[in-house]
C-alpha cells in the first residue's frame, strides 16, 4: 500500500521520536529532546500561519507567555489543576488572538507583523512589571503536572526527563497530525489559496479576513500549548518566554526548515534548538546567528532548508 504524504510524514516523525533515545549518549539528551519537541509544537503553529496562510507574526511568544503563566497562576489563584490551567491558557490565547487579529486582518499588507510585535512586547512587559502577581523578571514557580507520579505509582519506572521527552513527543505528533489534516482539508486549501493569490481566493468565495483569522487563532493556540509545556516541564517560568527574541526564534525556525512543510518546520526547530547546545559560541551570539540564518535562508533557499534539499536530491535523481 502506498502511504499518503500525511501518513509518511507522521510515520517519519514517530520513528524519529521513538528511535532517537537509542542514540542518546546520556540521559541529558532526553531533556534536550523534549525542548526540541516543545519548540517544534510552536513552530508547527507557525507553519499554519506563515506556511499555509502566508501571514507573519512577530509576537507569538506573547501567546507562549500566556500559556506558560496560566500554568503558574491559575492553580494558585483559581485552584485549577495544571492541565486545566494549560487549557485555560489556550482559551485565553485564542480569545486574545481573535481580538487582536479581527480588526488587523481586515487590512491588507503587513499590519499583522507590526500589531503582533506590539502585542508580544506588551505581554512581556506586563509579565515583567506586575511583580506582585507574576514574580517579575525572576519568574515564578509552576506546580507539578502530576502525571509522572501517577505513572510511577502504577509501576512505570520513568525518570522526569524521560517522561517529558515522551509527553512532549506525543504533543508534537498530535500537533503535526492536526496541521497535516488541515493542510488537505477545505480550510487548508482556502489558506494556501489566499497565500498563492488573495484576489483569486476571494473570487472563489473565500472570506479572506476570516480565513486569516482562523490561521492566526489556531497558531496562537499552538504557541500557548508550547508555552504551557515549557512551564510544566521546567517547573518554573520567566518573562523571557514572551520576549521578542523568542518570537523571532519561532519565525526563524519555521523559515529555516521550510515554513510550508510540517516536517521541515520540525527540522528547523531541531537545528536551532541543538545549535546553542553544541556550539557555545552560538549561545553568546544567538541574536546575530538568528539574523544571519534568516538572511542566508532568504537569499539561498527561499523554500527553507528541507524542501530545498529534497528538491536538489530529487533533481539529481531524475
Amino acid at each position, binding site marked *: 500500500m502506498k502511504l499518503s504524504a500525511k501518513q509518511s510524514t507522521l510515520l517519519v516523525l514517530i520513528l524519529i521520536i521513538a528511535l532517537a533515545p537509542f542514540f542518546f549518549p546520556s540521559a541529558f539528551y532526553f531533556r534536550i529532546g523534549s525542548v526540541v519537541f516543545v519548540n517544534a509544537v510552536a513552530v508547527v503553529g507557525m507553519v499554519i500561519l506563515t506556511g499555509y496562510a502566508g501571514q507573519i507574526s512577530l509576537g507569538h511568544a506573547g501567546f507562549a507567555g500566556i500559556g506558560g503563566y496560566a500554568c503558574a497562576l491559575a492553580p494558585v489563584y483559581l485552584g485549577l489543576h495544571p492541565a486545566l490551567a494549560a487549557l485555560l491558557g489556550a482559551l485565553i490565547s485564542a480569545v486574545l488572538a481573535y481580538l487582536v487579529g479581527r480588526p488587523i486582518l481586515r487590512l491588507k499588507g503587513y499590519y499583522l507583523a507590526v500589531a503582533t510585535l506590539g502585542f508580544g512586547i506588551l505581554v512581556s512587559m506586563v509579565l515583567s512589571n506586575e511583580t506582585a502577581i507574576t514574580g517579575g523578571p525572576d519568574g515564578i514557580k509552576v506546580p507539578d503536572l502530576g502525571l509522572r507520579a501517577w505513572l510511577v505509582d502504577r509501576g512505570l519506572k520513568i525518570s522526569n526527563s524521560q517522561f517529558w521527552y515522551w509527553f512532549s513527543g506525543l504533543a508534537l505528533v498530535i500537533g503535526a497530525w492536526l496541521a497535516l489534516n488541515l493542510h488537505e*482539508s*477545505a480550510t487548508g486549501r*482556502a489558506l494556501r489559496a489566499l497565500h498563492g*493569490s488573495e484576489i*483569486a481566493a476571494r*473570487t*472563489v*468565495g*473565500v472570506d479572506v479576513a476570516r480565513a486569516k483569522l482562523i490561521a492566526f487563532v489556531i497558531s496562537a493556540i499552538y504557541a500557548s500549548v508550547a508555552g504551557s509545556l515549557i512551564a510544566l516541564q521546567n517547573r518554573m517560568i520567566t518573562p523571557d518566554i514572551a520576549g521578542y527574541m523568542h518570537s523571532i526564534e519561532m519565525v526563524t525556525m519555521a523559515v529555516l526548515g521550510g515554513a*510550508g512543510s510540517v516536517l521541515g518546520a520540525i527540522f528547523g526547530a531541531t537545528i536551532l534548538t541543538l545549535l546553542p547546545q553544541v556550539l557555545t559560541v552560538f549561545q553568546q551570539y544567538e541574536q546575530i546567528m538568528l539574523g544571519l540564518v534568516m538572511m542566508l535562508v532568504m537569499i539561498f533557499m527561499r523554500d527553507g532548508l528541507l524542501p530545498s534539499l529534497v528538491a536538489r536530491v530529487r533533481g539529481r535523481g531524475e
Partner: protein
Amino acid sequence: MNLLTVEGIGIRFGGLHAVRDVGFSLKAGEIVSVIGPNGAGKTTLFNIISGVYIPHSGRILLESDDVTGFDPYLLARRGMSRTFQNLQIFQAMTVLENVMTGFHLRESGPVLSDLLALPSSRRRSREAESDARVLLARVGLERAAEREASALSYGALKRLEIARALALNPKLLLLDEPAAGCNAVETEEIDHLIVDVAKEGTAILLVEHDMKMVMRISNHIVVLDHGEKIAEGDPATVSRDPRVIEAYLGTQGQDANHAHG
C-alpha cells in the same frame, strides 16, 4: 429578467476617467463580449463588476439585487465567477487542488472537523476531488491533475482558470481574455467550451482580443473606447458601425480578424 445589469458605471484613477458612464445588461445563457482597443477600460470594467474595484458612480445589479461594491467572495456566493487576464493561479498547489478550491463554497465546513479529519470533512474533500476531476477532463487537463500548477504551459493555465471558475457552478461567468496565448486548436476548444457553458444557462461576459472568436460566439457586443461605450449590438451591427471601425479596427482596417488593439 436580466441576470446582470450595469448602470452608469464610472471610475477615476487620479484625474483619469478609466471608465465613464458605461451600462449594459446580460441574460441567462447569453454571451456578451466587451471589446475595445488596449487601454479602453475593459479589464477595469471587469474588476468593477467582480468587486475588485469600487466604482465612483453607477450601480451593478445581480438578479435585481444591488451588489455595487460587494467583496468578490460575497459575489461568488451569489453566483458570480471569473478568470483573470494576468493569470491568478495558486502556484504552490497541484492542478487538482487549484480546481478543488473552486468548490470552496460547497465544500467548506466547520474548521474543527477539518482539523480532526472527521469523516464529514474527508467526505467533503473526496466529493470536491471527484467533481474537480470531471471539470479537469472537461478542459482537457485530466492527465495533469497531480502536477504542480507552476509546471503548466500558459495555455493550459488559462484552461485551468476556467475549470476553477466553473467549479463555482456560476450563474454569471466573467472571462478575461481566455484565448490569449493559446494556439488555434486550443482557441477553438475554448470557443466550444464557452458556447457549451452558455447553453447550460450560464451568462458569459467576455473580454477577448481574438475577433474571430468574439464575432462567432457573441450574442451581443459592447464596444469601449477611452473608457466610454461607443457602440453596442449584435456582431453584424457592431462590425459595420463606423465609430467602431474608426476607434477600434483602425481607419484602414475592414479586416476585423487581425484587429489587435
